[in-house]
């Protein structure tokens, strides 16, 4: 088997194993509690009989490993259990909210990724001059403020003072795409700002790294113009690091979504997770945690796969 196929298989297998272990970690993480789920549902005043009944009903008396296997088996077949607080089917609740979250993250990525790469290139082009310095300063500022505050600052300025967009981002199925986009304009802007700084900085570093290679000097000494140097010689080698930057930041975006949804009261996964953490609804938290972790691990895996695929040493072995 060619080395490259072996490496790819290894990397994908690693991702799957990681996901399995993470599911175990999330399960264990929700078991280190001092009380138990039955107690937190029924409250301190519950009678021992009622507690015992609920425990039996929820299967809490079974050994942990058995419960984990049942939970994991359910999760793999699309059954994430029922919410303790509402009794609703978690899979059904998540499906709608996950698509809302992905809708938000998608538009943020569509704007942020090309913009970040463009600005990163700009910073490289004008290295150590004012555009570069401005970009560094903005980056410093934006990594120094938490996401939710950027959200409120923009809400205050754009929604309240300027009244361009609504301050909350309610969407539902009956809205047209245009209405939906107008509703999510502010949260998308905030998410873009949040990932833009990181992505710009990392793109700049990745491209500078390539531009400082000796083969770029060779290309310049062949009398090629700047455009030819960048597109023929820098770009093929910069793909992997840039994809890596993009994937890492998309993973970061997924986490940023949680907070931004709360700020703009957006009906997505993040809002759902945070609500149920406060209500101590463990099955929902486990399900959401697993999905967020899966997306995160998946994006990191894609980054590594692209790096393997674009490595000439692996594509053309000796």
């Amino acid at each position, binding site marked *: 088997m060619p080395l490259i196929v072996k490496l790819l298989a290894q990397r994908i297998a690693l991702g799957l194993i990681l996901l399995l272990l993470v599911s175990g970690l999330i399960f264990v993480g929700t078991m280190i509690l001092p009380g138990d789920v039955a107690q937190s549902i029924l409250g301190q005043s519950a009678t021992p009989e009622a507690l015992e009944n609920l425990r039996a009903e929820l299967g809490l008396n079974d050994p942990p490993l058995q419960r984990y296997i049942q939970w994991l088996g359910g999760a793999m077949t699309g059954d994430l259990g029922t919410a303790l607080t509402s009794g609703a089917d978690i899979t059904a609740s998540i499906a709608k909210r996950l698509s809302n979250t992905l809708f938000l993250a998608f538009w943020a990525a569509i704007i942020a990724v090309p913009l970040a790469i463009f600005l990163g290139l700009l910073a490289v082009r004008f290295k150590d001059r004012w555009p570069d310095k401005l970009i560094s300063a903005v980056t410093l500022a934006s990594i120094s*403020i938490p996401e939710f505050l950027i959200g*409120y600052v923009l809400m205050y300025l754009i929604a309240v003072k300027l009244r361009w967009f609504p301050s909350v981002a309610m969407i539902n199925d009956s809205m047209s795409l245009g209405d939906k986009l107008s509703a999510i304009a502010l949260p998308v802007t905030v998410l873009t700002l949040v990932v833009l700084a990181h992505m710009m900085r990392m793109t700049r570093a990745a491209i500078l790294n390539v531009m400082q290679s000796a083969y770029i000097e060779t290309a310049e000494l062949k009398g090629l113009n700047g455009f030819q140097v960048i597109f023929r010689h820098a770009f093929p080698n910069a793909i992997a690091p840039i994809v890596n930057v993009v994937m890492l930041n998309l993973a970061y975006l997924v986490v940023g979504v949680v907070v931004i949804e709360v700020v703009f009261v957006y009906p997505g996964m993040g809002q759902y997770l945070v609500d149920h953490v406060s209500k101590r609804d463990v099955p929902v938290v486990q399900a959401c*945690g697993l999905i967020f972790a899966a997306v995160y691990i998946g994006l990191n895996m894609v980054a590594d796969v692209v790096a393997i695929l674009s490595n000439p040493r692996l594509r053309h072995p000796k």
Partner: protein
Amino acid sequence: MKNIPISAMIGLFFTALYFLAAIFAPLLAPYGMAEVVGDVWEPSRIEIMLGLAPDGVTEANYWLGTDNIGRDLLSRMIYGGRTTIFIATAATILSFTLGSVLGFFAAVAGGWVDQALSRFVDLVMSIPTLIFALVVLSVMPVTVPVLILVMGLLDSTRVYRLARAVAVDIEVMDYVEAARLRGEKTAWIIFREILPNALSPLVAEMGLRFIFMVLFVSTLSFLGLGIQPPEADWGGIVKENKDGIVYGIPAALMPAFAIATLAISVNLVADWVLNRTTSLKGGRG
């Protein structure tokens, strides 16, 4: 002192200012933390000075106005800063001690110890920190020690990676090999050969970790999963006053200013420490 660049001076000044305000909060705050002193969301002197106040308002009793139930916002900001800075500092110390000790240990010990620790850290880091914290906090009582513990432990994975990487880099240097060939004990190698060379990058990283902790605890409190009322912290102040935003009341933005200035100040100091490392003239420069 004369060699400190101006940016680092500014950073040091504001960082010190925030820490002093945190320590002496009871002396500085004009009112009690939970003391209701006026009406809901009274305008501030600052707004009036900047001309941002609602029409007709020309006088104010409070520098930053009052909050959603009429407490003095300046007092709450000072007490809130105290809580935020205390938790962030404690979590940073925990994360740093644990992460760097284990990281150095893994680098010097090598073999299966290194493998076991590093793979476990990889596993924990494959779950986003905020999500993991939410999962754990869904079943833990939310108290200050629990917060410090959860934040510190989760973040120690990052410190571990850095400390291990730095130590591994130094470990392969010929001067460490020379010390081994001389017959030096492991303790000498860690404390006399590796640590002095690893200190500067670690101290710079400490600043970044501290900022991250401030942002982290603020985010948790904002989500209602951090500091519980009536205790104040910067994230909690945003949560309490966020409804005012829609009416154009900027009380919830005050913590933004505080967090950003603190974070930028610490960043400037960390940058300076890191730059100093690269200009090694025996570490005296």
